[in-house]
């Protein structure tokens, strides 16, 4: 595929703040989320989970549960086959433990019953005979030879000898002569960091409604970031043909990466298959925390050398990620992203993937990057402090730009980092005075972004309106953006277009809503589908006018003769062409299918002011400003929303959010009471500055914006706190006890 070259243009609709099409449904309580659907004869499912961090399952006796009146089916791992490929098997084993429970909260059995109370009662009748095994939850402990091994036989060929079998993968990136680089430095700072695991914390627990009929057909309704992928996984796990399993994505109550895989869907399908009735399965919050999504926890060592005038001479990072009880798919991204913001002659990053007895990590907004960049940006800040240099000047001096050989290999094309840093430097926030016990921190952030498989249909209705059918769950207003791009391309009002997210039977495969891909890739496909429809409408007009198709062009929502030689015909609008579509050849529709590339990387810079109470260690965020390159902000409200939401998730990560494990390996805080996501009163307004450095790979210049925003807050907060208290913090979260301890107050 050749890249779709960006062309500068004046936008008429893109860039305006239109009302989202799902707005009224969502403010009136009508929108249907995962747990909101019902079906005739529906049963309620419920899952029994391991209370042990690590245990061999000797036997499961379900007879008493099955004997309970109202129980219609019980499912254990024995009901499933064993998939051949590692990936599907891991997903399945995470949904239902096979032989061994690998973490506190790991599913071991499930029931379907006529009501929730009966399902609850049935779980208590299931007898699981566990043999408790030693466990490990800390990343550094899990790497040591002799650590309890979470799973055998998972070590990749790239792992050097001498580690525990929990170390499954090793990555190395970078270039240049480190020794020579460090030799040129006037100061080298080496520091180690730790970060706790956090959860995506979406407010809607996972929920689904599965219906399998005796002829082998199945329907699944679920909240997911990617229902096509749910179909792939579930069909693989249940041995079904994709055509027989139709998956419909409900409205989704947040995902942030955590709803990019399956947890309960295969179980609900199996329960429905065995019970012969529809089964609804809804997770409790406790289950969400114990058995889904968390991101990695990490430990890292950073070494950076700098000259006294602020030039980085060499940089090295070793990043150790634990991704729970299965091989982790996050390490490589953090390891690549660590130094992405810098133009370096000598750089090396090493990544280690480690298994522990914790839930299988799921993607979380720019997976791997926040903790890597947190550690790097902390050390850069420390060096600036050492030399008394302005941290923005130093970042500008070392900033990656067009032509920079990136720390992960490729040479950057047009990127927006310098413009973003300059915007931060010019902003009043950067010069605003600070009071006592206050500090200002800043950090760069980066994410790769990608495009991916996308399939869009655009139907021109006979009344002159347009329906768009796309396949990516709308997680933050994407239907509005997609309609806007179609409106721009077709030259008709936004309100004449309705975009819907179709089920898996309606379109070709669409990748998951992740990688900040939807506005970029679905937008691109929508523009191309619109152009396809335009070409067909021009052909109809050409027929009507009796001229060549090439002699017709599209202008302001109408077909017009391409020039004086084409003949004199009044413009024929989309509505006029649509009205006679039956007479001119039938329905008019545009299509586009692509595996989109050229997403264009995204950079951001965050500025943050905090005040620390030196007697309690409490941190208050006083002011926060986000600068980010959006390429082109199609719907600025929702671009700002991504920047603000990402920033606040990062603030939570920096200050209070953490998975806390006890000595017994059990999660101590699986509630929103003790897993402390930021509440409204914790925060100031989050100011946003959108930069628009067009992405050459998109016709409108769009870059993904969803993920980068969570990357800088960790270091921005840590740097701000470190300045406020005059001590370098190196562990997240910077909870009050940790800060007070650093201050020597307790």
């Amino acid at each position, binding site marked *: 595929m050749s890249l779709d070259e960006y062309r500068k243009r004046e936008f008429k609709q893109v860039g305006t703040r239109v009302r989202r099409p799902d707005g009224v449904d969502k403010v009136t309580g009508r929108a249907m989320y995962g747990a909101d659907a019902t079906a005739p004869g529906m049963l309620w499912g419920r899952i029994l989970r391991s209370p042990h961090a690590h245990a061999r399952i000797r036997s499961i006796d379900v007879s008493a549960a099955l004997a309970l009146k109202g129980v219609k089916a019980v499912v254990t791992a024995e009901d499933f086959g064993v998939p051949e490929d590692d990936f599907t098997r891991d997903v399945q084993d995470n949904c239902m433990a096979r032989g061994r429970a690998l973490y506190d909260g790991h599913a071991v059995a499930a029931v379907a019953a006529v009501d929730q109370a009966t399902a609850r009662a049935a779980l208590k009748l299931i007898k699981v005979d566990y043999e408790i095994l030693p466990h490990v939850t800390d990343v550094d402990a899990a790497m040591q030879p002799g650590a309890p091994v979470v799973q055998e036989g998972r070590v990749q060929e790239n792992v050097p000898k001498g580690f525990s079998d929990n170390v499954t993968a090793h990555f190395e990136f970078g270039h240049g002569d480190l020794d020579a680089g460090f030799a040129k430095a006037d100061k080298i700072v080496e520091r180690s960091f730790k970060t706790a695991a956090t959860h995506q914390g979406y407010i809607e627990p996972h929920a689904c409604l599965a219906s399998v009929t005796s002829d082998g057909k199945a329907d699944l309704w679920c909240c997911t970031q990617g229902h096509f992928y749910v179909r792939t996984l579930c069909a693989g796990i249940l041995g079904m043909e994709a055509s027989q399993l139709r998956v419909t994505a409900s409205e989704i109550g947040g995902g942030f990466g955590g709803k990019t895989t399956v947890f309960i869907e295969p179980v609900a399908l199996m329960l429905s298959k065995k019970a012969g009735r529809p089964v609804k399965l809804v997770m409790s919050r406790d289950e969400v925390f114990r058995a889904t999504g968390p991101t990695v926890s990490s430990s890292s060592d950073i070494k950076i050398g700098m000259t006294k005038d602020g030039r980085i001479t060499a940089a090295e990072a070793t990043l150790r990620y634990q991704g729970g009880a299965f091989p982790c798919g996050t390490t490589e991204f953090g390891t690549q992203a660590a130094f992405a913001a810098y133009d370096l002659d000598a750089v090396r990053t*090493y990544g280690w993937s480690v298994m522990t007895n914790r839930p299988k990590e799921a993607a979380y907004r720019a997976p791997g990057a926040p903790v890597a960049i947190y550690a790097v940006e902390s050390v850069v800040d420390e060096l600036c402090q050492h030399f008394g240099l302005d941290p923005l000047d130093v970042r500008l001096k070392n900033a990656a730009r067009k032509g920079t050989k990136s720390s992960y290999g490729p040479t950057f094309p047009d990127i927006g980092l310098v413009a973003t840093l300059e915007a931060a430097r010019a902003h009043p926030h950067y010069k605003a005075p600070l009071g006592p016990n206050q500090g200002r921190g800043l950090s760069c952030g980066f994410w790769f972004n990608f495009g991916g498989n996308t399939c869009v249909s655009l139907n021109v209705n006979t009344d002159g309106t347009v329906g768009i059918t796309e396949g990516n769950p709308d997680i933050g207003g994407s239907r509005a953006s997609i309609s806007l791009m179609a409106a721009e391309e077709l030259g008709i009002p936004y309100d004449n277009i309705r975009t819907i997210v179709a089920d898996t039977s309606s379109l070709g495969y669409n990748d998951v809503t992740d990688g900040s891909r939807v506005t970029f890739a679905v937008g691109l496909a929508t523009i191309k589908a619109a152009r396809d429809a335009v070409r067909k409408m021009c052909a109809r007009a050409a027929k009507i006018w009796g001229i060549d198709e090439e002699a017709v062009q599209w202008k302001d929502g109408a077909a017009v003769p391409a020039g004086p030689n084409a003949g004199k015909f009044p413009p024929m609008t989309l509505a006029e062409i649509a009205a006679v579509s039956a007479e001119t050849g039938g329905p008019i529709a545009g299509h586009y299918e692509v595996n989109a590339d050229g997403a264009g990387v995204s950079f951001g810079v965050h500025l943050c002011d905090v005040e620390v109470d030196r007697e309690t260690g409490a941190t208050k965020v006083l002011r926060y400003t986000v600068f980010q390159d959006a390429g082109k902000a199609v719907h600025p409200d929702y671009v700002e929303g991504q920047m603000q939401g990402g920033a606040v998730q990062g603030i939570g990560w920096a200050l209070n959010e953490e998975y806390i494990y006890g000595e017994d390996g059990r999660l101590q805080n699986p509630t929103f009471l003790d897993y402390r996501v930021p509440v409204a009163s914790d925060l100031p307004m989050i100011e946003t500055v959108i930069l628009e450095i067009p992405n050459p790979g998109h016709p409108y210049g769009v870059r993904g914006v969803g993920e980068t925003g969570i990357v800088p807050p960790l270091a921005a907060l840590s740097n701000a706190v470190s300045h406020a208290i005059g001590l370098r913090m190196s562990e997240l979260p910077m909870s009050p006890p940790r800060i007070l301890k650093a201050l020597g107050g307790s």
Partner: protein
Amino acid sequence: MVKVLLWGSLRQATGGLAEVEVEAANFKQLLDRLAVEYPGLKPQIARGISLSLDGVIYREAWFTEIGPDSEVVLMPYMTGG
């Protein structure tokens, strides 16, 4: 011939070379040649490799054309949240 930059931990499959040269006009040919000439790369190719071509990342497109002067960098298969 196309020059291909590998990430560090793949060097063990190429006898320590961080950059190798293979005959390929597109991504598919590149992966196929790499698997033949450096069999140690096969497990990683099976797990997934993305391609950066002149600074633009391609996740999996086999028929992406590679010119003789293109900058070609291998990357682990990209995903996101």
